[in-house]
């Protein structure tokens, strides 16, 4: 039932740890540690490091040109990765566009798109949410009307992370308005340099601009950029939801953040403060429970079981714990968080107290965790229907 890692597994862990720590630039690690904003170049240069080892598209099978890791290795990779202050890599190409392309795309599409994703040549974004279609994705309204060899795309996407940096977008569009909503959706790959696309960044509560609005005004997309069948986009989107969920516990990262907060508490002489010690221990035990839920789920899937939607529990608890940690950091530094400096957040200016200075922005930024990737309410709906079988 429990996972006992083999010597090969342990050697793999050590290899990952050594490669990442040898190649993670100190300055980048410091930015991540203090939650400063990363530039596009921060991401891509780090992703190049990963790609050099074929560990950017780390979840891909060998048949798609990935490293073909076992599930256990995949888990161990995430664990080592989260333990270091590595930037969270951009997921849209490697964890979303890529898997849909290598699962549902034709040979030509695979040859055309997969190398660029795997080798970190192209920056991807995800065109799902719209003003009227968030959790209720089937309500989307962006249309793609077939005109010979092209689709003419009109409409709007929103909350599109890094659309301002992206070369490509994978996009859900409406290709049939007559049938029931889920049946009329198709999956298109759109070149972000196409005429008719306007990207407008949205400033978020933490002062960052990672979200965008994307407007499509008569954008022509070649039919060969459609993945799979017309009208089957919903199926592919659902496939991704499960693909993504298993790796969403974020437990390793939370473990690192917890030890950073504990170190801060010690440095401030607050580690023995009864209330602070109690909150730290409480969160640590909640995190331990999450880690062991994940380990048991991993053991079951290594054993051949498909845990399917059960992995939603990891997304729910993982994001709740990450948010609680971001709140704890604010409470620990208290009034020292009040000094606000955009220059510090943009890593243009040093600080004597960097832990405190990034705390509020992080707390605000982390509110997104329970909203995106299928909001936690959507995850609970899935569990209620599919695991508890409540009608």
């Amino acid at each position, binding site marked *: *039932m429990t996972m006992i890692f083999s010597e090969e597994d342990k050697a793999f862990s050590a290899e990952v740890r050594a490669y990442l720590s040898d190649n993670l630039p100190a300055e980048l690690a410091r930015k991540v540690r203090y939650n400063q904003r990363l530039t596009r170049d921060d991401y891509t240069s780090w992703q190049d490091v990963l790609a050099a080892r074929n560990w950017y598209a780390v979840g891909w099978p060998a048949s798609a040109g990935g490293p073909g890791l076992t599930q256990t290795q995949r888990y161990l990779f995430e664990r080592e990765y989260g333990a270091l202050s590595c930037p969270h890599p951009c997921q849209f190409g490697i964890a979303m566009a890529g898997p849909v392309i290598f699962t549902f795309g034709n040979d030509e599409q695979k040859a055309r798109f997969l190398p660029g994703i795997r080798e970190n040549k192209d920056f991807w974004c995800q065109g799902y949410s719209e003003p009227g279609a968030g959790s209720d994705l089937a309500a989307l309204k962006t249309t793609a009307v077939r005109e010979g060899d092209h689709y003419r795309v009109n409409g709007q996407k929103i909350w599109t992370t890094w659309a301002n940096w992206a070369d490509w977008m994978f996009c859900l569009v409406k290709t049939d308005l007559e049938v029931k909503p889920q049946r009329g959706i198709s999956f298109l790959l759109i070149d972000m340099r196409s005429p008719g696309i306007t990207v407008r960044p949205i400033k978020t509560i933490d002062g960052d601009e990672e979200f965008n609005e994307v407007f499509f005004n008569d954008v022509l997309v070649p039919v060969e950029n459609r993945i799979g069948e017309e009208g089957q986009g919903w199926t592919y989107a659902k496939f991704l939801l499960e693909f993504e969920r298993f790796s969403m516990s974020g437990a390793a990262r939370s473990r690192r953040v917890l030890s950073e907060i504990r170190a801060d508490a010690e440095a401030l002489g607050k580690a023995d403060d009864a209330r602070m010690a109690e909150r730290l*221990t409480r969160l640590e*035990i909640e995190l331990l429970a999450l880690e062991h839920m994940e380990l*048991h789920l991993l053991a079951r899937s290594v054993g051949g079981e498909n845990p399917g939607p059960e992995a939603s*529990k990891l997304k729910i608890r993982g994001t709740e714990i990450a948010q609680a940690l971001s709140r704890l950091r604010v409470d620990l530094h208290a009034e020292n968080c009040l000094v606000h400096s955009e220059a510090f957040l943009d890593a243009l200016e040093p600080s004597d107290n960097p832990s405190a200075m990034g705390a509020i922005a992080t707390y605000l930024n982390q509110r997104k965790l329970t909203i995106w990737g299928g909001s936690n309410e959507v995850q609970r709906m899935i569990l209620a229907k599919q695991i508890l079988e409540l009608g």
Partner: protein
Amino acid sequence: MSTNLDDELHMLTDTVARYVANRSDGKAQIENGWKELAELGWLYLPYPEEVGGLGLGTAGVSAVMQGHGRGLLATPYLPFAVMAGGVLARCPRGSHALAAVMEGEQRVAAAFAVGAAPTLAAHPAGAGWRLVGACDHVLSVDEADAVLAVARIGATEETGLFLVRADAPGVTITVQPLPDGRKAGRVGFDDVAVAAVDRLDEDGEAEALLREVETEALLAAAADNLGAMQVLYEQTLDYAKLRKQFGRPIGSFQSLQFRLVDMWIKLDEVRSLVASAAAAPDRNEAGALAVAAWIQSVWSGRLIGEEAIQIHGAIAMTDEHAVGRYVKRILVNELVFGAPERHFSRYRSMR
């Protein structure tokens, strides 16, 4: 070896499930089961083979204890076999008593509270000792032939472990019924004479030994809680699917669906920690996981218990209904073995 152990544990889990299903009506607690536990061989399974046990350790205990929680068994497996037996199994001078415990011939209660300082004092008297003081809330002491007492040695900071017959002169037992129907008692020691051979520990080892036993007791209590909250979750989920209001099952309302999902997650957290603690090969890690499992089982137990009553509604307020019995079981466990915060420093010292 591991496959053998896995097979044995599998069989044990099945036997426990069958035993509970046969003996339980799902409502009242099961009384007078001690002889049956002895016949099933469960009194052998916690201890290592070197002292005559079956060597199933914490994994075996946690399977049996989940059955205890599930079937509301009143048999004092935890205090007698895990706590008192756990002490005896670690002391060479306890081997005789342990053999009688495993046979089911002698029942030894545990007169010490997990995580609390001893309330008894032992004064040297000739070659032996005299015990003075009282210990409260000793589980099932009314059924015991002897008690395993933990006492402070004289005016020192040291702790000693003593085996005392329940009918020894100067021992008084006052039964204290517990809110969930189980029994505990106050054991008074009025200058009770104890022979030197009945002090089980060697100087200086008692505290570390007790710590190990207490950690195992916490895991066993977590498993008892797990069994009980599993029933609460299952009954509440079933009820939500059957009970109709406003013309539809109440389980079709999203507010209740989300709460049931949270009960399921809280249950899974305990299940995961108990399973990991019982199977952890590393002693330190196993200890930290055991304490965490206990703490999580209390947190989860409170939520699942309160939600089970709320979602059942008024029917769960009746004395007749099973839900209240399970809720009381978990609550009594918490008060006997200690609220989470009381164990935080133990957890921190182990991780």
